[in-house]
């Protein structure tokens, strides 16, 4: 039925259109074609003028009415140092092209009206005028020269990379389907190496953990940057092309798989300052649809978007951007923890299990001596890891050895302290019970070699864990003075 109705209405419309056409043809027949053509010329010429006036008034009115949309105006002021340079170039171009636009349109439609054919008038014969041609070749050429010089001057200034001795901060943004991974260099200020072949679910960027520069790098879900600091963004992509786009900062650069690109900019307004500016505009004084209790300007955040088509989720690659004062930034920075130490350390993919890093050694020493000092019986000692190089071997990992060495040193210095070494394992490991016992002995040997007296160490036979598939686990437990097993 609907299809029938649709067909009927299409046919009806077609008939109406044809009839409209026919009417004028009949009129022309009655009144004479030439006469009719002059009348058409008169009316069409008139429409030309009407269109011209409405069009130009519409352009100006829309520019006034929508001035808050325009680049560099209203709520669209730039929030970066170079932003105003671009906006100025935009306005200069707008000025020149605006003049040309208005003049050419006035001439075009005015001539259309003025020179519409009238009875008894003849067209002029003016095939060419070289002087005019030269003039209207030269004028655009001069204007273009001006725009090119201004534009390239701005471009080269904006796109200039950092130079040696610049005080800048480098961060990395990696686009993927569909989001951004934001990586900060940590306290060394250096971004570690990465390789796409190393990407796993626990290493989303493919950071190469052998590179020590990676160890303090951290990932953030928001782009937090200090105001007034020169930022160099290293932009990369994991899968397809993306584009790192910060509309408020006039920053835009493609993210290309396998080829890092860079954009250097300096934010000049904190999020709070920008919000305060937005407060002045009525369009920001409406409740935020996502949070109706607040006004739009209050919930405003700078945003990071993708502006290179990258697949079905292209429109959703958002990360909030926060520009804060240096002090706030330092506080935020201090709360961020290294991705390596919180997610990778002592996991399978950690290449550094043969040692403890200096900072870890110091920290471990502090922790263990505090635990031993407390002498609270029955407490497990905070040993990070006791693991062996391979499934069958009896050689402890370097990091485990280093930990045990610290423990041994502390026990030796405090002969009254006594610890218990117990091991639990799963039922399914029963066949390897001999290996487990041998390993326990290997652990104990390290302590003895380091001068721990056998009386300080109580070895407990292997026990079976209650849960299935439990892994073999060694635990040192502190025994209080005089408390004997």
């Amino acid at each position, binding site marked *: 039925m609907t299809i029938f109705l649709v067909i009927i209405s299409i046919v009806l419309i077609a008939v109406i259109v*044809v009839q409209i056409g026919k009417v*004028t043809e009949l009129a022309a027949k009655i009144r004479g074609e030439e006469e009719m*053509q002059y009348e058409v010329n008169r009316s*069409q010429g008139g429409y*030309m003028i009407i269109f011209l006036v409405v069009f130009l008034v519409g352009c100006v009115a829309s520019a006034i009415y*929508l001035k808050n*949309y*325009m*680049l560099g105006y209203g709520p669209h002021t730039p929030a970066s140092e170079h932003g105003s340079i671009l906006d100025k*170039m*935009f306005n200069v*171009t*707008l000025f*020149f*092209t605006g003049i*040309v636009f208005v003049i*050419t349109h006035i001439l*075009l*439609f005015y*001539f*259309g009206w003025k*020179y519409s054919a009238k009875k008894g008038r*003849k*067209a*002029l*014969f*003016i*095939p*060419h*005028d070289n002087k*005019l*041609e030269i003039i*209207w070749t030269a004028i*655009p050429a001069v204007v273009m020269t001006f725009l090119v010089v201004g*534009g*390239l001057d*701005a*471009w080269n200034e*904006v796109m200039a990379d950092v130079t040696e001795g610049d005080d800048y901060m480098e961060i990395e943004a990696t686009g993927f389907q569909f989001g951004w991974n934001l990586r900060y260099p940590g306290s060394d200020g250096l971004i570690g190496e990465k390789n*796409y072949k190393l*990407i796993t679910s626990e290493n989303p960027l493919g950071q190469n953990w052998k590179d020590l520069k990676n160890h303090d790098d951290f990932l953030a879900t928001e782009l937090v940057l200090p105001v007034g600091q020169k930022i160099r963004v290293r932009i990369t992509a994991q*899968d397809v092309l993306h*584009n790192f*786009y910060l*509309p408020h900062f006039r920053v*835009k650069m493609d993210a*290309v*798989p*396998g*080829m890092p690109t860079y954009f250097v900019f300096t934010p000049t307004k904190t999020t709070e300052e920008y919000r305060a500016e937005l407060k002045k505009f009525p369009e920001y004084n409406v409740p935020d649809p*996502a949070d109706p209790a607040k006004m739009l300007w209050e919930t*405003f955040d700078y*945003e990071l*978007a993708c*502006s290179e*088509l990258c*697949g*079905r989720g*292209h*429109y959703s690659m958002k990360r909030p951007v926060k520009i804060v004062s240096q002090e706030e930034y330092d506080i935020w920075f201090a709360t961020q923890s290294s991705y390596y130490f919180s997610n990778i350390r002592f996991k399978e993919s950690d290449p550094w299990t043969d040692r403890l890093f200096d900072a870890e050694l110091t920290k471990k020493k502090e922790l263990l001596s505090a635990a031993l000092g407390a002498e609270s019986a029955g407490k497990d000692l905070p040993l990070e890891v006791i693991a062996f190089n391979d499934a069958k071997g009896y050689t402890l990992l370097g990091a485990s050895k280093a930990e045990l060495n610290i423990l041994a040193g502390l026990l030796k210095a405090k002969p009254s302290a006594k610890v218990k070494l117990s091991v639990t394992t799963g039922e399914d490991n029963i066949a390897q019970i001999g290996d487990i016992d041998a390993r326990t002995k290997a652990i104990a040997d390290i302590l003895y070699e380091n001068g721990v007296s056998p009386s300080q160490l109580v070895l407990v036979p292997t026990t079976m864990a209650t849960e299935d598939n439990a892994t073999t686990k060694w635990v040192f437990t502190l025994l209080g003075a005089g408390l004997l097993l």
Partner: protein
Amino acid sequence: MANVLTAAPHSEEDVLIEQMGYDDHFHEHHDGDKFQSSFITTYIFSQDHKMIAKQFLITGMFWGVIGGLMSLVFRLQLGFPEESLSWLKPVLGKWIEINAETGMGALSPDFYYALVTMHGTILVFFVLTAGLSGTFSNLLIPLQLGARDMASPLLNMMSYWFFFLAGLIMFISLFLNTGPFSGGWTAYPPLSALPQASTGSGAGMTLWLISLVFFVVSVLLGGINYITTVLNLRTKGMNMWRMPLTIWAFFVTAILGLLSFPVLASAFFLVMCDRGLGTSFFLNEIFIGGKALDHVGGSPVLYQHLFWFLGHPEVYIIILPAMGIVSEVLAVHSRKPVFGYKAMVFSILAIGFLSFIVWAHHMFMSGVNPFLANFFVVFTLIIAVPSAVKVFNWIATLFGGNIRFTAAVLFGIGFVSMFISGGLTGIFLGNSAIDIQMHDTYFVVAHFHIVMGVAAFFGMYAGVYHWFPKMYGRFMNETLGKLHFWGTIIGAYLIFWPMHYIGMAGVPRRYYRFDTFQTFSQFDDMNKFITIAAIITFGFQLIMIINFFYSIWYGKKVTDKNPWGATTLEWTTEVDPGHGNWAGKLPVVHRWAYDYGKDGVEFIPQTTPVKEGEKMEH
């Protein structure tokens, strides 16, 4: 101009030819017309350039409707994301995703991107390249040069059928289970090269590539024919400086196509290798779908260089024929010579040349060395100079004219307006510094739709209204034509003008929804407005289509060989010229194509011999 000639003394042969016409012994070569002996050879596998022109035009119109409807569907999604589109389910099937809770139907993002991609591909290649240049180069090159047909009618026929095949394959891809290609009409790898990156990059992309390779073949076969015909088959007296500007435009267009389309084909072949043979021309260090790929060492930016080495000349391949048509139409209907003929020719040549050294202005933000932009900005903004010269010349052509307002001339004037509006925003975008912010925003969408979309359409419409009498021996209805014009110019401005503002506010193009970002989500009203304007404007195009088909059979008959009072040769043929165009001998040309209003005579056809002592332009 320097070479204002006086009539040269005639040789004996010249006098003879003047009296008798130029005899190429056309009808002695064959008895009857072997080319048009049956329905199939007349209407389907026709080798007649006029029929091929009609085939290109009608196929182009078909694709225009398809491409236009696609844009309406995705505009509905953009303008009315909160309204249910479930009523489209009978047509679009699974691509309308129904929300189980609310019952709301929305376009699937995959299909949204597929529609955007198909809209671009179809409009750029099938409508504005094949439908415009294919139609009018075919129709006018032999007719305006005084040739019996193209240099190779067979290649010409193949050119159409390769285009048809390209279209057929693209059409089939619309019905794939995984959907047509959805990575944008520019098909940047890796997105286009990796089926795991997007559903449309699987079979959809394979068909897209095959289709466009056939399309390139079509363009090349057509182009080589146009060039050969222009160089070799001009009739007696038709030297290059006497050719109408249409022919100059088609000629340069064909050269651009011949030089740039093979580069596109090479890029496509390399993408095919990357997709199928495990090469790494455009792929490097990619981790996708949970796997690190083995491709290393390629560069996605290389593809962009190859693509835009075609892509930029392509926009002139689209706009130059429209410019040529408009020059001709403005001159004929304002009864005045086109102003500054030689300046017009030189600016076409300059634009054609410059179009090859500006491609990287599409790539300022692609990660190429920023230093490169210095050259491309300079050359890009230099193009503004010949473009401005053309605009001033068109305006000067109207000055002092006696304009007969037909639908054709209205579209000609509309073309100039659109070309100014869209051309000027090009000055913003060509300047790399401004492009940092404007790149890939709605400002770009507004710019290229106005300057190469709407403007090229206006050129095409001007051509259709003007040469319809030559094609079908009838007129299109003028009143409907004028209604079509006013509806389209107002509608097109209402669609694309607001996009400048959205773009200035920073909203990126190719977004399926805007509400993820607070910054981009504040233009709901404007998006609604644009969608409504688009629907209405599309409606006005249907008027044109009804008018077109109605007029083929029932339009007012042409009784006069030369209904517009034009000087060019196509109007010296019979009203409905048969195969071979001129029944008898070929016409001989004595003057340039723009002797309108000269010495008080309204128009002097190119075939009119030069009077003793007459001052000549060319």
